[in-house]
């Protein structure tokens, strides 16, 4: 039937994507590629690798995810514990978050860029981190809120009856109860942060070195792929596919980890 066809189209597309990247990228994926930074002439097809981009992206994604976590987790907890009485306010915040969630990353990039100009900063790791953090905050808070929402009110009432303060309930009870879901939200945000190009395009710059300080421009994987692909030299293009493969592998690993955490038997979680 038609419907089965449409479902298969989706599955086929996914396999096509993964297979084609694998096919094109694997041949050029050498150990060199992932363990070295670009040497002279790299962009003309000579030695080196994309280690600068790999490390740069990892630094960026780790830092922004951590920063987003520090801001986002308290907000999500607050929405479900402290503010549980103010339904209208919480719904308003949820609405706001949904709106933010849809804002394209390039808008954040443009915004970040104008802030940078205003403060006279140059393209740097820090600018990239801040921009990506802003970008992933709505994703993270929304994800966490979805999980925290499902905790039954009885848990809140029992904890309150024991004389716990709202903050204690948030961090000692709710956090514990929702850990697998929260980790999933964190992983997903990390995945978005590491793969997004538009937000780092203006703000992080590009360089051949592994960054050693926050104010240096940093290479990122998505941009590495993009720039190499735009090159007229075939070897460099091949390398682009290999870089794409690296990024894809990272993302797939995150997906697998996410599934693992969702399914993992939650030792201390209460099944309702």
């Amino acid at each position, binding site marked *: 039937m038609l419907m089965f066809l449409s479902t298969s189209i989706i599955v086929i597309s996914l396999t096509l994507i993964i297979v084609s990247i694998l096919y094109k990228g694997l041949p050029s994926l050498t150990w060199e590629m992932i363990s070295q930074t670009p040497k002279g002439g790299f962009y003309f097809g000579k030695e080196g690798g994309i280690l600068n981009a790999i490390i740069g992206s990892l630094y960026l994604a780790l830092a922004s995810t951590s920063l987003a976590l520090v801001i986002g987790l308290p907000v999500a907890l607050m929405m479900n514990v402290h503010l549980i009485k103010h339904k209208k306010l919480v719904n308003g915040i949820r609405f706001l978050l949904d709106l933010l969630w849809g804002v394209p990353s390039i808008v954040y990039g443009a915004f970040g860029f104008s802030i940078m100009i205003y403060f006279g900063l140059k393209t740097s790791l820090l600018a990239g981190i801040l921009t990506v953090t802003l970008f992933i905050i709505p994703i993270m808070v929304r994800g966490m809120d979805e999980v925290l929402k499902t905790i039954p009110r009885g848990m809140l009432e029992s904890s309150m009856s024991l004389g716990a303060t709202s903050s204690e309930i948030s961090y000692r009870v709710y956090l514990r109860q929702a850990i697998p879901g929260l980790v999933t939200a964190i992983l997903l945000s990390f995945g978005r942060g590491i*793969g997004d190009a538009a937000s780092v395009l203006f703000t992080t710059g590009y360089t051949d070195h592994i960054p050693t300080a926050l104010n240096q421009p940093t290479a990122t994987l998505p941009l590495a792929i993009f720039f190499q692909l735009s090159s007229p030299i075939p070897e460099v293009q091949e390398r682009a596919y290999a870089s794409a493969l690296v990024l894809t592998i990272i993302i797939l690993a995150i997906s697998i980890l996410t599934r693992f955490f969702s399914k993992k038997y939650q030792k201390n979680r209460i099944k309702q």
Partner: protein
Amino acid sequence: MNYKSFQSKDVFRCFKVKRHLRSKLHTTWMVIALMIVILLPIFLGIGLYVKSAMLLREQSLFELLFSSDWRPLAGKFGFLTFIISSLWVTVISLLIAGPICLLTSIHLTQYAKNWVLKVMHPVIDILAGIPSVIFGVWGILIIVPFISDYLAPLLGKQSSGYSILAGGIVLAVMIIPFILNILIDVFRTLPDELKEASLSLGTTKWQTIKLVLVRKAFPGIISAFGLGVSRAFGETIAVLMVVGNVTTIPKGLFQPGYPLPALIANNYGEMLSIPLYDSALMLAALVLFVVVMLFNLGSRYAITRIEEME
């Protein structure tokens, strides 16, 4: 045995203070974090607006949006070309993704066996997580040659492959997981009684779906599509890589285009060297922001209205 009597009153009081201080600190940080999150969209909007203000002072918004004269060096910033390109790619992507998502969601929620759902779940999640560069690479690898070597000649046209159509197809695949998830939710929350009532009137399953369920789910479907559109409109990198980036109004599917996000992405380097260019690009970003927000607002509003009616 009341253990409280063992505890020295001072130590107890000291801990009480510490405990409340800790809670207060946590709560204060929570409020600050909340403020950051709430103020974020406001700052975004204001920041972009302030930067675009310079250009808006010299030319009217109407002129900018509806002129296709784009010659930055001469101070001409007509966005029409880019807006039309954006519209083209977005519409095409919706035309492709919409029916596919609708059919698939019906299939998955009404017909499919359990194992199909189990397989589709990770498929959708993985598809949703793939970064847009990768979609772009895939587009270049497969879609572009497909169009230039097979599809276009089949229809008697010439094309380099870098075209609106390529952009539309890539975008479609990107927004599919997004729309699909919403549609699956929408169909899942339809009450079974509705289906049963219709079936007991003698309709076939397909008729039930077409006439009853889809009608009931209609607002949800519209809002899912609306959200898909807002996503598609703002997508940058993947489209940029396959769409050609030529500043003319595309006259056909197989011609290249230049959507708004691509404009911003491609030209940020020249932003500062040409007068008013940065303002123009910020205005483009602001337009994107507003359009996406409006679509989001509309779609979310529709969803909340449905939920209220339940």
